[in-house]
C-alpha cells in the first residue's frame, strides 16, 4: 500500500470511529467522500471489516486485555443457609443479577422455586446442585426424587444408580441421570444438552426412549418436528450461566423466547419469519444490544411492539 493510500485508509478509519458520536461532522464527511472515489472505497473496507468483527465476535474468544478490568469476582458472596436448602450465588453474568425467589415450604408438599431476573443455585441433600435460570420454576418433591421444570436449569447431579431421580420438562421425563446437563423448557418445547455423563429421555409420545451422551443435545417440539438429536459441536452446554446463548439451527421463536428469559427483553417474532432458523452464539449483555446483534446476524429489522419489540423481515 502506498503512502497516499495509507493516509486515506487512516482517515477512513478515523471517520468510521467518529461516526457513533453526535459530534460527527457529517457535512465534512460528505465533502471528503465526494473529493475522491477512493475515499468511499476505503471507508467501505474499514466499516465492513468492523461489521465482520461484530458478526464473528460472539463466537470468538474474548481477547485478553491488560490492566484493571479484571473479571468481577462472584465467589465472595457467602452461601446462606435457609432451612435445609443451601442458596449459593452462582457465577453469573452481570446481566443476570437481582432476584425474587419464592420457596414455599410445607412438609410433604413439593417445594417450589421461582426465579425472577436472576438465577439461583440450590443444593439437594445428596450434594447435587441445580442452578435455576432466570424466570423459571422448579418443583422438588419432598423426597427429592421427582423434579419438574418449566424454564431453564443447569443440573450437576451426584450419580447414584440406586436412586430413582426423575426430572419432568414438558412431555419429557429425564431419568438415569449422571451428571452435568442443561435443560430448557419453553412452553413444552424442550432442549437438553449433556456436558458430562449421560441421561435417558423418555416420553409417552416417543416410540422409544433416547439416550444422550456427553456432547449431545436433544431438541423436542411436541407440535412440529418431534425429536432431534445432534452433537453440540463444541458449544458448551449451559452457556447461559456465562451470558452466552448458543444455537444450532434453532427456530427463531425459541431464540426470541430465550431473550425474554435471559436478556430481560420481550421479543415477538413476525409470523412471516416463523420458519427462520438461527445458528450462532449471542452474548447476553443488555437485552437491546443482544437483540440488535441477533437482528443484524439474521438481516432482520426491529419494530416496536407494545412494551417490547418485534423482529420483522429486513427492509434492505
Amino acid at each position, binding site marked *: 500500500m502506498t503512502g497516499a493510500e495509507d493516509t486515506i485508509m487512516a482517515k477512513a478509519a478515523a471517520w468510521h470511529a*467518529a461516526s457513533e458520536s453526535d459530534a*460527527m461532522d457529517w457535512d465534512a464527511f460528505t465533502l471528503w467522500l465526494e473529493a475522491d472515489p477512493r475515499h468511499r472505497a476505503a471507508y467501505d473496507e474499514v466499516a465492513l471489516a468492523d461489521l465482520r*468483527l461484530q458478526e464473528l465476535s460472539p463466537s470468538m474468544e474474548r481477547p485478553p*486485555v491488560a490492566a484493571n478490568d479484571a473479571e468481577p469476582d462472584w465467589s465472595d458472596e457467602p452461601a446462606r443457609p435457609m432451612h435445609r436448602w443451601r442458596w449459593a450465588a452462582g457465577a453469573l453474568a452481570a446481566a443476570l443479577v437481582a432476584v425474587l425467589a419464592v420457596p414455599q415450604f410445607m412438609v410433604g408438599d413439593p417445594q417450589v422455586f421461582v426465579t425472577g431476573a436472576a438465577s439461583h443455585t440450590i443444593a439437594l441433600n445428596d450434594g447435587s446442585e441445580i442452578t435455576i435460570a432466570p424466570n423459571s420454576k422448579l418443583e422438588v418433591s419432598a423426597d427429592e426424587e421427582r423434579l419438574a421444570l418449566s424454564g431453564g436449569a443447569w443440573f450437576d447431579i451426584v450419580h447414584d444408580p440406586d436412586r430413582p431421580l426423575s426430572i419432568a420438562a414438558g412431555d419429557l421425563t429425564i431419568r438415569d441421570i449422571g451428571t452435568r446437563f442443561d435443560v430448557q423448557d419453553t412452553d413444552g418445547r424442550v432442549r437438553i444438552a449433556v456436558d458430562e455423563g449421560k441421561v435417558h429421555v423418555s416420553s409417552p409420545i416417543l416410540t422409544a426412549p433416547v439416550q444422550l451422551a456427553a456432547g449431545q443435545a436433544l431438541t423436542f417440539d411436541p407440535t412440529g418436528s418431534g425429536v432431534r438429536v445432534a452433537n453440540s459441536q463444541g458449544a458448551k452446554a449451559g452457556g447461559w450461566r456465562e451470558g452466552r446463548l448458543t444455537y444450532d439451527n434453532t427456530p427463531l421463536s425459541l431464540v426470541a423466547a430465550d431473550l425474554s428469559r435471559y436478556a430481560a427483553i420481550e421479543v415477538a417474532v413476525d409470523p412471516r419469519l416463523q420458519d427462520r432458523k438461527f445458528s450462532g452464539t449471542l452474548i447476553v449483555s443488555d437485552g437491546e444490544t443482544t437483540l440488535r446483534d441477533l437482528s443484524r446476524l439474521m438481516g432482520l429489522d426491529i419494530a416496536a411492539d407494545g412494551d417490547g419489540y418485534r423482529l420483522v423481515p429486513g427492509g434492505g
Partner: protein
Amino acid sequence: MDKPIASETGLAAAFETHRNELLRFIAARWGDGSEAEDLLQDLWLKLRSVAEGPVANPRAYLFRMANNLVLDRRRAQQRAMRRDRSWLEAGGADDTSVDDRPDPAPLADALLEEQQEQEALQAAIADLPPGARRALVLYRFDGHGQAEIAAIMGISRSGVEKHLALAMRHLRDALADCGKSRLAASGEHGDADGQVPQPGMER
C-alpha cells in the same frame, strides 16, 4: 411503555428538513447517484418502522442511520456476489437459480472462510498496541459505547476514537490479507472479466 414512532419524535420533520443533505450524503457514500433516491426511500420506510426513544440530535441520528443503511446494502451486495460465485464454482446453476434456493445451508467454504477470518481477526487484535486492543475489546466484545469506554479507561472520548480508528485499520488489513491468501490458496484468479472480486478493490 409505548415507544413513540418517528412522527412523534421529530425525526419525520427532521427528515424533511434535511432531505437534500441526506440525499447528497447517500449519493456520495453509495457512489452511484442513480440509486440514491431509492436508498433515501428505504431510509424513510425504516424510520417509520424502527422503534425510537427520544433522539437528542435528530440530524446526526438520520445521517448515522443513512450511513448504516448504505453499509448494510453494501454488505448484502458483497454477500450476493460471493454466493453467486461459490454457487457457480460448486457446479450449481442447473435447475434452481441462486435466488430460488431457500436459505441455503452454510457451505463448507463459507465455514472455512469464517474460521480463517476469525483467526486473522484474533491475530490482528493480539498484535494491537495495548490501549487500542483494550478499547476494541470493550467496544466489540463487551458491547460498551464509546462514552463508557472513555470512562472505563479514564481517557477522553477522542482518545477512544483514536484507539478504535487504529484498531479498525488493522482489522481491515487483516481481512484484506486473509481474502488475498484465500484466493491464492484456492488457485482462483478472478472471475470472467479478469477482476478478482474482492471487496474494496474497485478504484
